[in-house]
């Protein structure tokens, strides 16, 4: 697969909020197709989010596409190490604009429990080389947290939140 360098946030910079863009935003926000891309433990929770109990499909985001060309959002679920980082970057580059990144789990946010002095293997956070839009912490996060992350992303795209906010008790 080839790589293309796509200027990041090319679309966002051009876009001004008009009625049409609002419609586009609504369309995009409600059809976030994630990539079938799991790295480690969090991937299992990502699968659990798509499973019957939590059902990511309600938000139209269950279409896990295995090919980056057809994806809108990359859920980085797990630790990225130095060997994997170029591949992740390639996959991100292969996604067509507009595209978003959710860093799921502590490893993707900052390296998580695998950060220690003198570590030689991992990238300390996906935001070191990807423009992360939403962070979902946890080790691993509960499926609700990932849904919350998707809702946050929709909030970011449309500018408002359609769903009630849930306060943890």
């Amino acid at each position, binding site marked *: 697969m080839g790589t293309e360098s796509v200027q990041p946030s090319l679309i966002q910079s051009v876009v001004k909020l008009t009625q049409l863009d609002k419609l586009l935003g609504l369309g995009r926000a409600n059809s976030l197709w994630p990539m079938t891309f799991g790295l480690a433990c969090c991937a299992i929770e990502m699968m659990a989010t798509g499973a019957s109990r939590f059902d990511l499909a309600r938000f139209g985001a269950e279409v896990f596409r295995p090919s980056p060309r057809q994806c809108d959002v990359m859920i980085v679920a797990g630790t990225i190490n130095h060997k994997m980082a170029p591949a992740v970057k390639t996959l991100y580059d292969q996604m067509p604009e507009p595209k978003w990144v959710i860093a799921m789990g502590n490893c993707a946010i900052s390296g998580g429990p695998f950060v220690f002095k003198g570590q030689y*293997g991992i990238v300390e956070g996906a935001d070191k080389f990807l423009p992360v839009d939403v962070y979902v912490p946890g080790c691993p996060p509960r499926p609700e947290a990932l849904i919350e992350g998707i809702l946050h992303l929709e909030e970011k795209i449309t500018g408002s939140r359609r769903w009630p906010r849930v306060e943890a008790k």
Partner: protein
Amino acid sequence: MLLDTIKKELAAVALSTEEEVSAEDLAATETPETVERAEGEAPAEAPEGKEEEKPRPPIMETDYRAKGFHLDVQVAPDKVVEAAKILYKENFFIEAVTGVDWLKEEEFEVVYDYNNMAELCRVVVRTRVPRSTPQLPTISEVYAGANWHERETHDFFGIEFMGHPDLSPLLLPEDADFHPLLKDYTP
């Protein structure tokens, strides 16, 4: 008893106490050096632990309940293949190959864990190579599964397995030139 048979057979390849190699090996476990090492890292308890092991025979039945294995065999580096062949004949399978970096003694220890499916009998074969020239023959011809274990050991310690088909990094990036599990490794 499987344990007895294998002990008898392995005795042929085990490091014999008379040979020079073993003298060197014994020297490594002599008290003065151990103490020296212990001073560096573990002042209180290490010498006691080591002293029990001092007259360590090259082939030794161990207390399974305390150690987790039945037979502990020390061989010369060039005998690992023979040992592997003997064990293969008795239907042992290889569990793991790994290294230990004895920095103070300037030596690598390479440990082979064998186990048997029919009867519980864990055999540990260990050998020591100098840190400056870490070379020993591969057993991947006997045990195909050792291929990856040896590659991994090469990744982590830089120990070279002579005759190994492909020692390129397995777990580390393809272009990795460092050996992270060395005690003196700093990234």
